[in-house]
């Protein structure tokens, strides 16, 4: 069953000069068709300005399409009556971990979503405890978020969304402001949630390495989906990715160059171990 589906999705916005005259119309999303299955781990890749963040905001009904339709859990986001149901179905994590924390105590921040939804008090506490456990932050429940690392803050953000019992989590470059350790921490947490809680994850990123373990990868450019498929399929098309000014994971690039210069190894190598394996089996 598909959890998110878009049909010829278009989003346009206008730039205005100082006198409020429209100077240009920008098409941030240009006819995107997506069909995302429940329980999948999806990665959306793209450079800055490729429309990937705009797409994310459509899933949470923070933006509405100019053309086409998007359904989240079967609900059309243009249906105002369903707004809160849609936002509860698809939770959202943003880039800056500080700017999405409302409360000064971690457990209260995690409880913010359920409070807004009108969940009874006892149930909120259960959800908060469960969510904090799921992201491995139970020990910090009563602490202030100011003393956490970026990765930990982002995990609290994930717990906050989790407490709303979403079917899907949309993450808009959640690791862009984190150090490598924090980045690994967050990605690992999301993968665990995807496996244990069967939550659909849509990870928007420009780090290729983070997309390697996804079930399905979309590559966006100029508001359109240019490439899609499993990570292996997508990353074996090194030339096409480069034409889109995108890099591929280092190992993949090395394997690709080796293959081009005549070494006999398979296509679409994504991990260091795979390359080692392939090289050891040469002779």
């Amino acid at each position, binding site marked *: 069953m598909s959890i998110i589906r878009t049909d010829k999705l278009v989003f346009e916005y206008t730039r205005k000069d100082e006198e409020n005259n429209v100077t240009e119309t920008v098409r941030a999303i240009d006819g995107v068709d997506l069909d995302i299955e429940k329980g999948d781990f999806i990665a959306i890749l793209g450079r800055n300005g490729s429309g990937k963040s705009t797409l994310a905001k459509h899933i949470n009904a923070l933006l509405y399409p100019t053309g086409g339709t998007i359904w989240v859990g079967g609900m059309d986001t243009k249906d105002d009556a369903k707004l*809160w149901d849609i936002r509860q179905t698809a939770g959202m994590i943003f880039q800056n971990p500080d700017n999405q924390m409302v409360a000064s105590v971690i457990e209260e921040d995690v409880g913010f979503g359920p409070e807004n939804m009108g969940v009874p008090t006892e149930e909120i506490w259960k959800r908060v405890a469960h969510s904090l456990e799921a992201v491995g932050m139970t020990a910090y429940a009563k602490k202030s978020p100011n003393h956490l690392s970026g990765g930990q803050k982002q995990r609290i953000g994930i717990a906050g969304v989790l407490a709303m019992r979403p079917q899907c989590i949309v993450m808009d470059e959640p690791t862009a402001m984190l150090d490598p350790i924090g980045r690994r921490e967050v990605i690992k947490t999301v993968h665990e949630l995807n496996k244990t809680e069967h939550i659909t994850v849509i990870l928007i990123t420009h780090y290729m390495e983070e997309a390697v373990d996804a079930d399905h990868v979309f590559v966006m450019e100029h508001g359109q989906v240019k490439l899609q498929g499993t990570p292996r399929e997508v990353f074996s098309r090194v030339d096409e990715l480069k034409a889109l000014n995108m890099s591929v994971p280092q190992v993949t690039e090395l394997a690709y160059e080796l293959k081009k210069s005549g070494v006999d190894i398979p296509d679409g190598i994504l991990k260091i171990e795979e390359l080692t394996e392939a090289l050891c089996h040469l002779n």
Partner: protein
Amino acid sequence: MLKDMTLGQYYPVDSMVHRLDPRTKLAGTLLYIISLFITNNVVGYAIAFLFLCLCIGLSHVPPKYILKGLKPVLVLMFISVFFNLFFIKGEPVLFSWKFITITQPGLRQAILMAVRLVFLISGSALMTYTTTPTALTDGMEKGLGFLKVFKVPVHEIAMMMSIALRFIPILAEEADKIQKAQMARGAVFDEGNLIQRAKALVPLLVPLFISAFRRATDLAMAMEARCYHGGDGRTKMHPLKYGRNDMLVYTAFLAYLALVFISRKISIGI
């Protein structure tokens, strides 16, 4: 510089004061402030001091931490002392040189005013140290809920305040960062007269404001994404309920207030 500011920040320990209903603490703080304006002699101030010590002791907040919180208001205290000291006329004159005269009532008033300010700020700071901003918000929202009848947006005001408190340390850190970046490019913040210093703050404040607005947009979006839609239909993680301790504290405050009233009648000549 701004990062060590402790004023208004929650101090996370567990104590009887921390567990009180926020409405009790709000009302208590208000009563305490009123009491400070009722007292007019040393006995009253001594009572106020002892009561404050009792509260601080019960709260498990280190006194050092509270003293540290007084730092940002030193300027205010200095100004008040200055005006009281030099501009109150009366007899007897203690010191006189050219146009400067210090009188005994002036000196007395200056000292009492400074003490009053210290008590007032410590007392209200104790409330914010022992109450999470969310609890404070809840307390205000419920305690002042009756104002809704007059179309006062109580929930919105309370939410704004709690968010402001949440972002104080973040913006303070940011101000520090911007200041260092400007200093690295040759800006001078700690030289020159008052006007020059104020002018030097402009390149600090402009980027700070821009960043604050950007954060506000981000936060608004994040709140909406988490289904925030005002106070209607919201449930609470900590629903407010008065307990036995709250009643005890209310009684203690009333007793304290009565003592302060009685102290007005006592005069020991100072």
